[in-house]
């Protein structure tokens, strides 16, 4: 069988994509405090995201992946994942920042052109989560770099991620 019967049915069936959640008010408040409105205007309403795993258990990555599926369809919001930090406006950092990843993370942040936003995704990046106190953990992220937005959760669900990321698109 070819893919076409399935594709055709999809064309006429109701769309799976759900309405995007509104921007999270807590996130809006954080952003307003962290980034001046001139920079926010310059970043605009279409943003390139780059994910950096700095010690995650990979649970957060699974939910970042789920943003691309038909139910969540991240790209309709003007947000898309890019392959290099050099192309990115936003760094999404997951994990508690391990000692072994600290330098690589630092280089990724340096490689991202200004103005940029750094978003802590998940409880690990927000603090150090369940890995607090481990000898291989150098975090939290906020001790190395300015964190503009925190999306908590272990892992945050795709809907929580969307609500957080939408804050980046709202005019400041």
């Amino acid at each position, binding site marked *: 069988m*070819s893919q076409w019967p399935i594709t055709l049915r999809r064309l006429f069936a109701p769309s799976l994509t759900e309405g995007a959640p509104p921007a999270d008010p807590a996130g809006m408040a954080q952003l307003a405090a962290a980034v001046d409105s001139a920079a926010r205007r310059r970043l605009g309403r279409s943003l390139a995201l780059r994910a950096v795993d700095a010690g995650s258990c990979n*649970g957060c990555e699974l939910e970042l992946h789920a943003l691309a599926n038909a139910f969540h369809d991240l790209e309709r919001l003007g947000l898309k994942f890019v392959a290099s930090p050099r192309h990115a406006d936003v760094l999404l950092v997951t994990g508690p920042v391990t000692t*072994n*990843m600290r330098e690589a993370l630092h280089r990724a942040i340096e490689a991202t052109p200004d103005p940029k936003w750094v978003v802590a995704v998940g409880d690990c990046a927000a603090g150090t989560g*369940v*890995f607090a106190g*481990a000898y291989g953990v150098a975090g939290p992220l906020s001790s190395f770099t300015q964190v503009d937005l925190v999306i908590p959760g272990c892992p945050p669900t795709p809907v929580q991620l969307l609500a957080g990321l939408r804050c980046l698109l709202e005019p400041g």
Partner: protein
Amino acid sequence: MADDLLTYLAPATIVTWHRPCTRFELDQPAWRLLVERMAEADWSLLGLWADVDWIHMALRDEVEGGVAVASVPVIDGRYPAVSPVRPGAIRLERVIRDLWGHEADGAVDTRPWLDHGRWPDRRPLSPHPVATPPDAPTAEAYAFLPATGDGLHQVPVGPIHAGIIEPGHFRFTANGETVVRLEARLGWLHKGIESLMQGLAPADAARLACRISGDSAVAHALAFARAAEAAADIRPPPRADWLRAVMAELERIANHLGDIGAICNDVAYAFMSAECGVLRERCLRAAAACFGHRLMFDRIVPGGVAGDIDADQVGVLRRLVHGIRPAFRKLIDVYDNQASLADRLVGTGTVRPELVHRFAAGGFVGRASLRAVDARKAAPYPPYDKLDWPIPLFGEGDVNARVWVRIREVEASLDLIDALLDGLPGGPIAVAMPARAGEGLALVEGFRGEIMTWVRLDAAGRVGRCHPRDPSWFQWPLLEAAIEGNIIADFPVCNKSFNCSYAGVDL
């Protein structure tokens, strides 16, 4: 040659508080003889790990099926190496040295593995850590194996990769487009989970077990819980066993669906990725509706499960299974008839059966290369002892074969969930963990393959030592073999077809 593993070890001292398999204490000469014997015997390495002054090794007799743990004391910081006869032990010996400082005499590879020269202390798990000298060589100074020849060049990739993926460094030596050698350098995610677990009550350590590798949260939590329960000599109630299996099969289906889609996506067939993504999302939503968490974190606890499901939730799972089955069948039909997919995936990233056997690799990597071992059947734990299902086996060892193993396993797991819901016993869902000392070993089949977790509980019932061995330990080295002779551009799809865990081996 006639002896099986357990007969061979029988003269050694038996540790009476180790369950369910037997642990034998050997002196160093006896351990040396055991290693010599392993050169000929078909005893696969399940794990190699250290304690304060012991080295433990779990083995399975591939002919008779028996599992045993052999232990040897570390004397003057040294023990006889296993790596000369079991290549799967190479990285494990390097880890033992990095974390504990125990040296393996005769080790095949003495380079560091997890220790990148950046931790505040060397040998952080030993009772006597030493401060890392400020001039310690860091990951950049790591001595990659040399490859010399005309026209060879190196391509370093990582630790950060394009895409939403875990960090690891890959060093390709290529001749034009063709990979001559790949060497992986991992350890970037090392947090120190084993040390964090020490001293915790099993219920708290279980939360860490869940986060060893988030995609295998259920499987790792199950392996930890079963090891802790064996150590404390208790059994969870039957309903807990069955609910655990429902979660484990749901996790397997969700991950396989994600992998099948991602593999196709890596050869630019986005249709499959989109369709599998929809089915995967349906699984995660059902998991959230029935178990309260999309990835089922913290649902399995030592002693049982954290929550029960009611008739409505059983209905949700039934509808999920009955919805996925026909949709998946159509997708498989598409996969099977797409010439462009066959062109890219057949014959790509081949691993020979002998190599899979030498490393005792399990899961889809093993079963795509004729190694059928599945922990659910090899030493059936409840409720799998009451169920039957086919174990898919392919011999080609390529990306396509690894996809087909996953396809067949999705089908089998859908049927298993139906059977589990049919047979779901009533009764309580958990028992209390007693404060009791003991040691336990558990073997659990995660979606990647066999997880081995070993737990020692102290007299207060707290975790004295825990070692979780992810299936990826024995699969990562095979990826290096699979890519040889392939083009660099096919590395992502080969890598995806293995889908080894980075977090699970870095710990």
